[in-house]
């Protein structure tokens, strides 16, 4: 008999006043009892709308049925068969627009808490299971190079390893994980979890080459010369955009990428690390996406007195997840909507003293379907000492500049015929490098899809025959 409670079993969370000053994880996760109770809310629908909402098609009702029975390892195995990084997805996926958005329980009341259950299973597995995923490749296996160790690359590498390929992942930074380690903060996604997931892939035989910038130290063509049969480009969208307003190069103006990298990857919030960062008192974060929320919440945790989100449209148009906006507000972040930066002023040493903004109103819908913001003619000056610009990123040009014949569009995104096959034979791509900045799970979906195409390609080319599969 299903649990017909209209609301999700609540997620235990740290108190906003306390958590807004530390970097510990905000959401504590379900207990086994919570998870079983919530799992019983699933109606196990025949047509499974939730599965169609998932970019990697996790067999959601099946794993939830296992959770309801208390077979958590069984549930984990089902998730893991299509999702390489469940502990990550359970935390950062925008479930409300995906699986949970399609859940029939959401029509009357709240949807089943699929994300929380996924996270529970992954965490349970990490705490209880021995790492037994076997390595299926050896010295003679077909080699595939994966560029970038973010969600797309890791998911592609995991799927290829599962299919018996010998995979090397090339990472420019000194730590693997891409946006999972430099972008998403510790309090949303503990780095120990990312590390464990990556160690799981390494146990499957995936090799990770850190400190290696493809496009500089080695090119895509040289990877083929080194003996890789195929190359997957999952280099993300890491090039930060700026506002193009006067004063933007003042000291104390950061791209969100720089600010978050200093905090998350380089651990500027920990005393024992040498990473410098401006310990700001009054911070303006420009933008309305998840990255803006992450930057604002980091600034608060670093001890700022006042942190505001400055966004040119209204809250309804904000691309950030509702949950992120809600958490940010709970932590005391001020939302200045319909406010558009016009200029940044600085003192004689070049340090930020204020940001002048145009006050906006909403006009007619634009090409994106969202109402276009228009200046009202009124301005305000915000008294700030730090400005963090979180207005989006585009793909890094290093690989397209050094790979002849790789077609890209005018935004610099790699063009594909079928979502993952590029204009170069044997070169596949996925994630933000193809789509422009999007979500972790879409990148993972593309990585997995590319792995299947790479497998098909290697078989078609005769690099790999059925015998050694």
């Amino acid at each position, binding site marked *: 008999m299903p649990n017909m409670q209209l609301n999700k079993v609540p997620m235990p969370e740290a108190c906003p006043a306390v958590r807004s000053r530390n970097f510990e994880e905000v959401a504590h996760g379900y207990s086994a009892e919570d998870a079983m109770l919530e799992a019983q809310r699933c109606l196990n629908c025949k047509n499974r709308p939730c599965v169609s909402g998932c970019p990697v098609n996790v067999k959601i009702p099946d794993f939830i049925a296992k959770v309801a029975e208390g077979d958590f390892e069984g549930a984990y195995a089902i998730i893991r068969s299509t999702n390489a990084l469940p502990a990550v997805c359970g935390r950062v996926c925008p479930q409300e627009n995906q699986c949970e958005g399609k859940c029939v329980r959401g029509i009357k009341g709240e949807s089943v808490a699929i994300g929380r259950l996924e996270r529970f299973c992954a965490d349970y597995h990490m705490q209880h299971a021995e790492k037994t995923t076997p390595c299926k490749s050896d010295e003679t296996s077909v080699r595939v190079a994966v560029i970038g160790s973010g969600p797309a690359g890791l998911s592609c590498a995991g799927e290829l390893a599962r299919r018996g390929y010998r995979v090397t992942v090339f990472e*420019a*930074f*000194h730590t693997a994980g891409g946006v999972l380690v430099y972008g998403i903060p510790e309090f949303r996604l503990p780095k120990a979890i990312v590390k464990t997931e990556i160690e799981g892939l390494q146990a499957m035989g995936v090799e990770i080459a*850190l*400190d*290696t*910038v493809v496009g*500089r*130290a*080695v090119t895509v063509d040289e990877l083929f010369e080194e003996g890789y049969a195929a190359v997957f480009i999952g280099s993300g969208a*890491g*090039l*930060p955009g*700026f506002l193009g307003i006067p004063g*933007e*190069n*003042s*000291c*104390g103006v*950061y*791209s969100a*990428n*720089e600010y978050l*990298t*200093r905090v998350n990857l*380089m*651990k500027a919030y920990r005393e*024992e*690390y*040498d*990473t*410098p960062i*401006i310990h700001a008192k009054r911070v303006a974060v420009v933008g309305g996406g998840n990255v803006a929320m992450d930057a604002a919440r980091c600034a608060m945790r670093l001890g700022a007195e006042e942190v505001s989100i400055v966004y040119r449209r209204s809250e309804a148009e904000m691309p950030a997840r509702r949950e992120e906006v809600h958490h940010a507000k709970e932590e005391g972040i001020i939302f200045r909507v319909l406010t558009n930066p016009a200029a940044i002023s600085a003192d004689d*040493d*070049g340090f930020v003293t204020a940001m002048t903004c145009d006050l906006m109103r909403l006009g007619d819908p634009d090409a994106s379907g969202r109402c276009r913001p228009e200046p009202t003619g009124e301005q305000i000056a915000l008294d700030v000492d730090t400005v963090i610009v979180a207005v989006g990123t585009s793909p*890094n*040009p*290093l690989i397209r500049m050094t790979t002849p014949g790789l077609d890209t569009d005018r935004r610099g995104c790699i063009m594909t015929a079928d979502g993952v096959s590029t204009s170069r034979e044997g070169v596949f791509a996925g994630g933000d490098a193809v789509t422009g900045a999007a979500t972790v799970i879409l990148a993972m979906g593309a990585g997995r899809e590319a792995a299947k195409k790479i497998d098909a390609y290697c078989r078609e080319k005769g690099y790999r025959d059925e015998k050694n599969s």
Partner: protein
Amino acid sequence: MFKIVRKYSLNDTTDFLSVYAPRIAAKAKPGQFIIFRIDETGERIPLTIAGYDRAAGTVSVIFQKVGKSTIKLGEMKEGDEILDFVGPLGTPSHLDGYRRVAVIGGGLGCAIAYPQAKYLHEQGTEVDMIVGFRSKDIIILEEEMRACSNTLTILTDDGSNGNQGLVTDGLKQKIESGAQYDLVIAIGPPIMMKFVCRLTKQYGIKTIVSMNPIMIDGTGMCGGCRVTVGGKIKFACVDGPDFDGHEVDFDELIRRNRMYAADERHARDAHCNLMKMANTEQR
């Protein structure tokens, strides 16, 4: 991990270091740089490549022990390993097709100017090197620079080598006495590059400078290294580090490089005090 294969001092504050990094050695070109990180809690610090040996797989850097990370690097010995060493980063310098070039180096900047002069000299370009140091005691690479230039002019701020003056004085003298340059390369402190560019602009000589801003990743991902060139934002790590010196906003670069001056002083002093205490205890 990256092993230090050779290390020695050039003067009291400047060290030479060669690291086994075959992937970087295979690709490095003049004008490119590396980023190192000594250990898990260290900063990522960019240093321009001073030389490379493709056969031996080694890359060398010359650095001044001015902050915590470079002081710690200076304390390491041959055989020790550096946790991270990534490169070659940045766009290589365009050095082909010039007839006569003046290469200007200021202090540690000579370590970066030297491989450029060497490359030009090997291509058959006539090279005049004009370099400046605070005083005679801290002159580095004198023999190396002499070997790769047609003329070498060394100036000191205090005149201790018998030739007092600034590099701009040396350059002006060369130009006034009839030297026809189709390029000037200026590498050194931003203030020096600024004044060299001011001079060469008067004579209408194309001038390339090498930027040394604060950066994290070196691949275009943080934007911390942005400089204004010709009124536009450029990233020194991918668009540079070489830029047309007549277009660079040097004052902005100087301000941005001071962004963490207080933290840097604090970290350096704390580290030095710690070392002093350790040395006292050993005694």
